[in-house]
């Protein structure tokens, strides 16, 4: 496995050749066309763009060729549109679906979205902007959850920045703390529209990341980070409140290693337990065993085993009510055998 990063780096180098720095991809401008739309207002759009009403995808309806022009004009250079290279699109859009639903006919149907038509020599945006889509489709839920498919095929080439018209893209509210995890359970493909896993790893690769994000990104004051400020002073309170939440990212060793460095476990140089702990520890362990695991989860070497092993000095069954594992389970599990050394219940 050690060779994997090297091989991947080689693959990346190959894949990245021929790349150039991204400039914002401009929408198609009027300067791209040689066709004066304003001189043809008497025609219906589909007189020339005859394949558009049947087009279920962008790019499948070719632009009118010289033959179309020559239905009315002489065959000369002025009426022969230049060849245009094939374009690629990252939007899924069906003219068929839309033209039949806008409730208008002819050019009026097209004008619902194509408000400005391209003219030769004029500069300016003529591709319908996204707010033409949202004029009919509010897409509030989709935008709030960054559910860009199936309209957008890929958004990887755009920077993940809030869009002014769609404030929900900022993933505000409880999105970072709670909602994004809930959505990723069934909609990870949606997240992947904009974020590859190098982005997720910044926070979620808890076994390997060099720094927690609050330290790495101190300038992100608006971001709803979980461990802000001197979190170490309150981490034990949040952990007592919701230990499962900590465990969704951090395993035993994460807690225990720091506690060992601080002398809170393995030697008890700084015994954190209050006086009289021994008599109360069972109730406390029943209630919040994950807190105990922050220092005492050493398997068979755990301090718990010393007293609670079968025949040990504790002399009580430490399992909670309703415990149901039988001797078959015990003998199959090394952890059980730490106390049930003979493989028997008693």
């Amino acid at each position, binding site marked *: 496995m050690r060779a994997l990063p090297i091989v991947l780096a080689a693959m990346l180098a190959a894949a990245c050749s021929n790349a150039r720095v*991204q400039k914002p991809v401009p929408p198609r401008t009027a300067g791209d066309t040689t066709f004066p739309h304003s001189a043809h207002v008497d025609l219906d759009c589909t007189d020339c763009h005859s394949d558009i009403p049947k087009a279920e995808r962008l790019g499948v309806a070719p632009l009118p060729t010289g033959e179309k022009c020559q239905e009315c004009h002489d065959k000369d250079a002025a009426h022969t549109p230049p060849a245009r290279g094939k374009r690629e699109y990252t939007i899924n859009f069906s003219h068929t679906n839309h033209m039949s639903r806008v409730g208008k006919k002819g050019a009026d149907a097209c004008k619902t979205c194509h408000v400005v038509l391209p003219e030769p020599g004029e500069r300016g945006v003529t591709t319908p902007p996204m707010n033409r889509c949202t004029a009919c489709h509010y897409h509030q839920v989709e935008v709030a959850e960054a559910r860009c498919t199936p309209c957008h095929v890929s958004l990887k080439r755009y920077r993940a920045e809030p869009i002014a018209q769609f404030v929900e893209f900022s993933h505000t509210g409880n999105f970072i703390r709670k909602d994004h995890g809930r959505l990723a*359970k069934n909609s990870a493909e949606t997240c992947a529209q904009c974020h590859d896993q190098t982005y997720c790893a910044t926070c979620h690769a808890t076994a390997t990341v060099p720094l927690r994000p609050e330290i790495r990104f101190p300038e992100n004051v*608006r971001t709803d980070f979980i461990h802000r400020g*001197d979190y170490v002073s309150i981490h034990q309170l949040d952990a007592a409140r919701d230990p499962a939440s900590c465990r969704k990212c951090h395993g035993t060793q994460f807690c225990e290693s720091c506690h060992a460095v601080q002398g809170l476990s393995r030697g008890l140089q700084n015994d954190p337990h209050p006086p009289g702990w021994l008599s109360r520890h069972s109730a406390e362990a029943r209630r919040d065993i994950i807190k105990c695991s922050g220092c005492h989860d050493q398997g068979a070497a755990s301090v718990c085993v010393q007293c609670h092993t079968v025949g040990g000095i504790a002399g009580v069954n430490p399992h909670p009510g309703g415990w149901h594992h039988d001797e078959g389970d015990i003998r199959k599990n090394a*952890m059980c055998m730490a106390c049930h050394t003979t493989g028997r219940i008693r």
Partner: protein
Amino acid sequence: MNRLRLVALAMLAIAAGAARADTIRANSTTLLLSRENAIQGQLEHTLPIFEIMSITASDVSTSFAQDVEVALSLWGAVDLNDVRAWQGGSFTDRRVSGDVDVAYVKGDLLDRRLTVRVGRQMVPDGTSRMVHLDGGQIRLRLPANFGVSAFAGSPVSPRFGARGGLGYGSIGNTRANFATGGRVFYYLPARLEVGASTMIANDRGDPSRRDLGADFRVFLPSSLQLAGSAFYSLYDERLGEGEASLSWRGSRRLQAAAEYRHVEPDLFLPRTSILSVFANDERNEVGGWARLEPLRALVLDVDYHALLEDPGTGHRARARGIYTLRPRTDVGAEAAVLVSPGGTQLANGGYWMARAFGAHGRGPFDVTVDVVSYFLERSINGEDLALTATGTVGWRFMQGFKVLVAGTGGTTPYLTRHFDVLAKLVYDQIYVTREVR
């Protein structure tokens, strides 16, 4: 096995040779951090310098798959002063450290019906709990809006160390040397999503997780949405967690949700933990959140949950407001409170949090200030206040480049005075090879 790996890797490399990426995102962060830590009452001054890199080639054109993506994220560090005693759960006695966060190849096959991802990755699906593993994942889109995903691999340990067991193998959320699982799902666009999933993890032969999960999301009329998820431990035959929320996003200026959650925390311990046999605590939370935009420039987020536990009822609440004075200039304030439901003798009590922050950007410069204070109900080392203030100055000096200096000072229960300094040079760039509209 080594020969098999070499052949597989060679095939991948050859395949990549003919590939050309459409979009490449490259990020490099060179970061110097001067930081003080209290280790058993002694001051440790660390001065590590990090190089953190990630590069992703997306939409790669190949003859054998569509939308191929190759991603690599890794870092290295050198301690220039004291060696950091603790690095996110792993110990080191060497000045030089580093690791790989993500390294995978992903591609779509069968006319985008099948997605395959191989390498170091994370799996978010269903009840997998974002497990970080070295392995593979597939997602197959079946007819009639059904689908299935599956994964298998070895959960990640730092520095490619020993898998599973105590130690490195349990720094992440899955103590196991092998994990597998999957999810079957069905969706009706804009109406319904429902899935059933499983997660099986083995720690050197012993069961670490044996969970069944379910999740759903229903889009109701009037911009209401009902969502929920749950997992059930097959090994202990108990419900580990179940949660549901009803959210309303009917207006851009007001969104709200009501939530309920039941959790049995001990089921988040690996079943190989000796401590997993002592507890069966149950907890419940009920509450909700709201997001208001009373003014165009003002956003308020509020959140409240009642914590229903055996010792009593606790409360968790948070409020945050951000006022945007002009683009790239905003101020904010946040307050939070935790009232413990009783808790245990260890880590009992609650706290208040108050925070104020602001950001201002002009031209290539950005300045931020962030002051965070925690007021502890029960003092630590005789102190009940942790106060830290951070200021940053950033400068974007050319396209894709940014340099930033940050200073953090304050007083905490562990350090009466401390001051950390961070300096970083960030390069973040997107490259394209084709024009795509």
